[in-house]
């Protein structure tokens, strides 16, 4: 595959602007137009949300046959179900007859899904079992074997994380994740597996989805955006405190950082309880263990919109920091409205005490009620409102920090690593992947997403 993307002539907005010029990732100049513009959003639906791999849920959310949850794949509503044989399946949540949503709860256990409209009923493996008034169809009028629920083109899981795509030409998940698997292993495979606690917190924010996405691997916003916590003595009064570590960019636009905390044993190995730390060498290579040892905070994005946050924080003045692992997803609803999904994950072997402490810390600091996250949403909404006007859309946003940063050739892991946890290397790589998806008419028109060559 070529690493230089040919730019199809059709990748232009109606005003003549080339999509490729809206995300000048190598220069760190990203047009404000891409964040809340209806025309860009319409093209994203076709070129990103119909083609990418999207996080659907975690295997631990549907442990038993018949368990199901309703989610989105891209922006289309889907049912994630474990069928009676134990097979995980993902279907468009829409009847084949008139398109009614066949599942209208957030979660249930069901062997059959019966459409309320005319009563078409499907087995939880997707097969159409009965249609309405079947005796009134003549021979050949109802092709039941081919009228099962519409499955996604592909779905697969990695370390319990279930992803799906509508694009039959998408690479397999294993190839799509590529080098990112090495880092997912460090985060979610460190003790042999994690599970999510409870249902996700879900809330709608008046933001273009990319303002939220942009924020996750950004360490240097913390000192300003979350300065109230500095004032309260809950974050170090040092603007550089989260700058010690590495930012890593992988192919396909996947990005992450591994960041050190205070130089004490408490902040090593994500700050996990000792009984969990003890398991890590059984599941990771020595070089991965060493990376984990130096990490208190990590955020990563599986392109485009699934994130992990592995953080240590406290929701309470004077109490010690507790680690938590947060999974996040942004599902766009409109150019200026985004549904936020947030799960708390915990190592499967965690004690009841740690489960309680990690959930409490997460809920007090992240999610809509979290004393950190609250301020992030405020920023995304105001960024969005300020990107709506014709004057603003003629200007760029600046993602230039670390543009000349040398790759750390000594980094033992895959991907390109930079020995600095402050910088916009990750965002530039993300926007390069966005440009690749947005400028190719067909998958395969361009090289691997996320190549930032400058």
């Amino acid at each position, binding site marked *: 595959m070529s690493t230089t993307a040919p730019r199809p002539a059709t990748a232009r907005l109606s005003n003549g602007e080339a999509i490729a010029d809206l995300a000048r990732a190598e220069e760190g100049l990203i047009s404000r137009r891409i964040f809340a513009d209806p025309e860009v959003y319409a093209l994203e639906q076709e070129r990103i949300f119909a083609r990418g791999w999207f996080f659907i849920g975690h295997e631990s959310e549907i442990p038993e046959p018949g368990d199901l949850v309703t989610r989105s794949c891209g922006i289309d509503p889907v049912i994630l179900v474990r069928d009676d044989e134990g097979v995980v399946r993902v279907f468009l949540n829409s009847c084949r007859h008139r398109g009614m949503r066949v599942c*209208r*709860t*957030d*979660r*249930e256990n069901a062997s059959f899904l019966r459409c309320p409209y005319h009563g078409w009923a499907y087995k939880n493996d997707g097969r159409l079992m009965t249609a309405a008034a079947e005796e009134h169809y003549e021979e050949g009028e109802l092709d039941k074997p081919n009228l099962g629920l519409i499955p996604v083109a592909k779905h697969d899981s990695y370390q319990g994380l279930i992803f799906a795509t509508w694009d039959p030409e998408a690479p397999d998940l294993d190839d799509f994740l590529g080098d990112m698997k090495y880092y997912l292993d460090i985060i979610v495979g460190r003790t042999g597996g994690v599970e999510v*606690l*409870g*249902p*996700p*917190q*879900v*809330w*709608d*924010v*008046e933001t273009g989805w990319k303002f939220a996405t942009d924020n996750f691997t950004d360490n240097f916003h913390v000192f300003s*955006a979350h*300065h*109230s*916590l*500095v*004032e*309260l003595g*809950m974050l170090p009064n040092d603007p550089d405190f989260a700058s010690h570590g590495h930012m890593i960019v992988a192919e396909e636009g996947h990005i992450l950082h591994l960041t050190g905390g205070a130089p004490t044993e408490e902040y090593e190995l994500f700050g996990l309880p000792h009984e969990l730390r003890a398991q890590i060498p059984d599941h990771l290579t020595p070089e991965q263990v060493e990376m984990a040892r130096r990490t208190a905070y990590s955020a990563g994005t599986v392109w485009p919109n699934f994130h992990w946050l592995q953080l240590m924080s406290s*929701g*309470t*003045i*004077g*109490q010690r920091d507790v680690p938590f692992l947060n999974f996040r997803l942004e599902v766009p609803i409109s150019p200026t409205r985004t*549904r936020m999904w947030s799960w*708390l994950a915990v190592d499967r072997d965690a004690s009841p005490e740690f489960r309680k402490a990690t*959930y*409490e810390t997460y*809920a*007090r600091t992240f*999610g*809509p*009620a979290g*004393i950190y*996250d*609250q*301020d992030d*949403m*405020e*920023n995304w*909404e105001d960024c969005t409102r300020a990107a709506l006007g014709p004057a603003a859309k003629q200007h760029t946003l600046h993602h230039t920090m670390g543009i000349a940063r040398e790759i750390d050739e000594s980094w033992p892991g895959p991907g390109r690593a930079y020995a600095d946890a402050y910088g916009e290397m990750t965002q530039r790589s993300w926007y390069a992947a966005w440009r690749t998806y947005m400028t190719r008419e067909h998958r395969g028109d361009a090289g691997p997403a996320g190549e930032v060559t400058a």
Partner: protein
Amino acid sequence: MSALTGGALLPNTDEYGRVLEFLHHEAELLDTYRFADWLELFTDDVAYSMPVRTTQFLTDGEGFHEFGFFVDDHATLMTRVKRLETEFAWAETPPSRTRHYVSNLRLERAAEGPELEARINFMVTRTRQDLDYQMFTGVRRDLLVPDGDAYKVRRRTILVDQTVITATNLSVLF
């Protein structure tokens, strides 16, 4: 969250009037930014929670879960109040304008001891900057302990009506 069994207190009782006045006083404190005074209304061992809710069939229950948006104790509430008192809590700086409405008070005595359970319907409206209203509605269940002529809240469970919170965040207090 089962009801207490010490019997209902009706609107024609002094106790009902005192509780209603207490709840109105609390709402006024929140809507006038007197957060430190508001915090005084809670016992040191308060449990303050807002469970996550999901849409499910009624046969599977009302949809409330063990895990919450809020899972706070007194020290956490104090942290939220002190955060609002900094100049940097951007979600509330400049502050939202809120209005806390309290209605449909149902009051019951504990089977033993002086505690009362007050169940109310709540509505909180919020507007900030030049923006449209955000609204939160639901039921609040408060376990109240008599404290002189007033009360302190020992347990507050906020049962929201929404499964998807259609608001920027939950930076307002309930």
